[in-house]
Structure formats: C-alpha cells, structure tokens
C-alpha cells in the first residue's frame, strides 16, 4: 500500500488507481512496413526493471484521468508524477 499524488485530485490511496504499464512507448508511424517480429516487439515486449521505471497510471476510482509516474519498483518510492503529454522530469 502506498499513496499516489494524482496530478488532478491530489494524494490518494493506491487502491484507487490502476497501472497501465510502461510509459513513453511510441507507436511506429508505418505499422504496415514492420516485420511481424518488430510489430510484436512494439505490441508485447515491455521492460520489467527492478529499479526506477516510467509507468502510465489511471485514477480509475477517481477522476479517471491517465498520467505518468516515475516509480522505483524495488521499494514503491515515487520519484515524480506528471500529466500525459508533459516531458519526464527525470531521465
């Protein structure tokens, strides 16, 4: 259990949110030109880092807005929360 600071509603319990997986995955501009392997790579292959990870989250039981989060998966420490479309504050 940990608290997440929703960029729209403020600090809420993690149980109100759902994780949408890795953030900043760019859709290929010409999917038809990709091989099956490249398409599968884009669709399914995700990093599973033990450490700091960029993730998408949804405030499912609140404002229902999506946002991005930088979270350390080792200890659930949240380094940053930022809105969709904003640049990641840390690299």
């Amino acid at each position: 259990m940990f608290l997440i600071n929703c960029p729209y509603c403020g600090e809420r319990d993690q149980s109100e949110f759902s994780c949408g997986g890795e953030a900043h995955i760019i859709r290929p501009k010409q999917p038809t030109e990709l091989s099956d392997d490249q398409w599968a790579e884009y669709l399914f292959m995700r990093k599973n880092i033990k450490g700091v990870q960029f993730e998408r989250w949804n405030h499912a039981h609140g404002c229902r807005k999506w946002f991005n989060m930088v979270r350390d998966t080792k200890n659930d420490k949240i380094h940053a929360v930022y809105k969709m479309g904003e640049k990641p504050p840390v690299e």
Partner: protein
Amino acid sequence: MLNQEYPKFEKGSFEGIEISLSEPNVKINLRGKKKEFFTKIGKILSIILPIEPNTSSSNQQYNTLWLSPDEWLVYFNGEDRQLFNNLFNEISKLNFGSVVDVSNQWICINIKGNKTFDLLSSGSPFNYESFKKTKNSVTQTLLNHTDVIIHHKEINEINLFVRRSFSEDLWLWIKDSARFI
C-alpha cells in the same frame, strides 16, 4: 426494459447517523472544454462550474460537482427534465460539449449525523480529515469496494452517489456498519 423505479430503501436511524434515500433527483453529466460550453452553462444554470479540484458550487436550485478537469455532475431535487433538454439542445447538439442524463444511473443517499465520517472511514481508503472540515467539498473514491461520489453538503451531512446496480448492496453495508460505529 429499463426499470425506472427507485429502490425502496427504508430510512435508517442509528446512534449519531441517519440514512435516507434522497430521490427523485435529476442528475446530469457535463463534459466540455470549449469556451462556448462554459458560457452556455453559465447562462442556463446561472452558476459557474467549479474548476478547482474536489469542490462544488451551488445556488438555490442546482448543485454542480467537480469530477475531473473537464467533467461535472449537476443535480437537483425533482423530476423536471426541462433543464436537460435545454442543456442538450444548446450544448450537445451544437458540439460544444457533452450532456448526458444520468438520473437513472446514480442513486443519491443522504447520510447525516456526527458519526457520518466515522462510518465512511470504516470502509474507504480516502482520508476524510480535511474533507470533513470543508463544506461543499467533493470526492470520488471507494466505499466498501464500490465507486462513489461524495458531496459534503453541510457539516456532518453528505450526499452519496452510487451506481444503481450497486446501491442495494452498499445500502445494506451502510446500515450494517452504522450499527457498529
């Protein structure tokens, strides 16, 4: 066919808590970002939509609740659907935003008494400490694993909106929990 009858909940009175069904209410969901959207709302409702998160605004007739940066819930007592028709014709039809009548989707339960927030805290992950001190605050959270919208109408009095299909289960949970607070 859609069952438009309201659930038959009997009033409950417990030590420090009173629970009652607050229906019929008209509830309208508003979504929009355009300047014209806000202008039309202001004209029709004579109210400024709250843009600060977790707040509400009210006049003698209408209550408007902030749900997200581009979404609001308007509710008022009665069954008059004329307001919905006005909003729909002036906003939805002209593509300034979206107006949806959700009167039959949500059930409004009124809870009052000095133990109201003790009851809510017993089944919710939300921290009510600052919420209970602020009149007209609004939150969307979970109560007994059910999505709810809570409008802090008066001190120690809330209007709780729950989806119709979950309302009976939540009503029973509230009555049950109120006995042990």
